[in-house]
């Protein structure tokens, strides 16, 4: 941790930076970066070093955007660390959100070596039968399946194109899928 004199020096440099001294700003940013890196390592020791660097850059950007809030009459390090803690908390929230929505798989598991048992794509094995089954659906259900499942449009996009409501589309796609399952399982 920096000594009081060192912290005062950083405060003075920051004051000069606020007044437009680019050398002082360069110096203060360079001096606080290892400090921030250490703080991030200490509080988020589970992060990869690239994530640590991203977080440090986030903190530097945030510091830059609110540099007008530094009051030279107040200590520099508590000001800096309050920004750092806040950005680390945001980073942790982002990390948790990402982890909750992502499943990272290094390699798809292969159960048997034979090709037919490793049908990794989601494609249906008899596309012609599927095409016919979709063709036999009522107009609304067919349209909903084509737009939402085959063309992968969003509900909003499909609703604006068809003039159907989002709820009606959801119902149509659900009924269409149920009908397809029935038809295709009978055929199989």
């Amino acid at each position, binding site marked *: 941790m920096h000594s009081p004199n060192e912290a005062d020096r950083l405060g003075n440099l920051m004051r000069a*930076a606020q007044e437009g001294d680019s*050398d002082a700003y360069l110096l203060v940013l360079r001096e606080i970066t290892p400090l921030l890196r250490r703080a991030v390592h200490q509080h988020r020791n589970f992060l990869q070093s690239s994530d640590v*660097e991203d977080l440090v850059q986030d903190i530097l950007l945030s510091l830059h955007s609110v*540099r*007008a809030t530094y009051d030279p009459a107040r200590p520099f390090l508590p000001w800096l660390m309050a920004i750092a803690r806040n950005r680390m908390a*945001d980073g942790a929230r982002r990390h948790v959100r990402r982890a909750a929505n992502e499943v990272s798989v290094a390699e798809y598991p292969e159960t048997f070596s034979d090709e037919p048992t490793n049908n990794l794509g989601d494609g249906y094995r008899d596309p012609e039968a599927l095409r016919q089954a979709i063709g036999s659906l009522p107009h609304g259900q067919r349209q909903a399946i084509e737009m939402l499942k085959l063309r992968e449009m969003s509900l909003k996009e499909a609703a604006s194109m068809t003039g159907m409501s989002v709820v009606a589309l959801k119902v149509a796609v659900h009924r269409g899928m149920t009908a397809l399952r029935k038809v295709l399982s009978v055929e199989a």
Partner: protein
Amino acid sequence: MDTDQLIQQLSRGPTPVGRLPAPWRRAAIWFAISVPYVAAVIWLHSMSFDVTQMLADRQFIVEQIATLLTAIAAVTAAFCSVVPGYDRRILLFPLPPLTIWLISIGEGCVRDWLRLGAQGLALRADWDCLPPAALIGIVPALAIVIMLRRGAPLYPRVSLALAALAVAALGNFGLRFFHVGDASIMVLVWHFGSVVVLALLAGWIGKRVLNWKKAELAAQP
């Protein structure tokens, strides 16, 4: 981009930045903008008040002092909340005057109930008060949001809830001069209730109004 490149970029010819004044000074600036506006809204609605009746009503005086102190404490705490490095306990600064305000109204409710029975707790709508009540917060609210956005969005929900508390408390301070004889239940539901609802709503949208993305965009030359 690596960190050293980012540092080089950030430090390349930074223009001088206008240092933010201390929170109490910003609170004073906000009052200087808001108080004349609140007075003007009340004057435009040609409301008249009875000074003798006001001075004779002890509960009214306590309530008004607590309301004003709530506005002062809330706006100061809101401005402190956007400056990194302040102790977080400062966010609780408006709680004591707010509690006194609530206790004072509660005491009035009990007194009205003992004096008038169920009639003392009867609630009615006062639609005449609605236009000035809606108008009175506009300029103070705009001013405080603009001022808060110059700070760091450390606790956006709390900052905006405190801002709404300050705006609503100041508005109530002004409007209450014309409701000196009102039943306390009216003050509790319409005046205090609106303050709480506004603060909660503001807290709810806090992150949309104050966030780091907006702060970083605003800082770009």
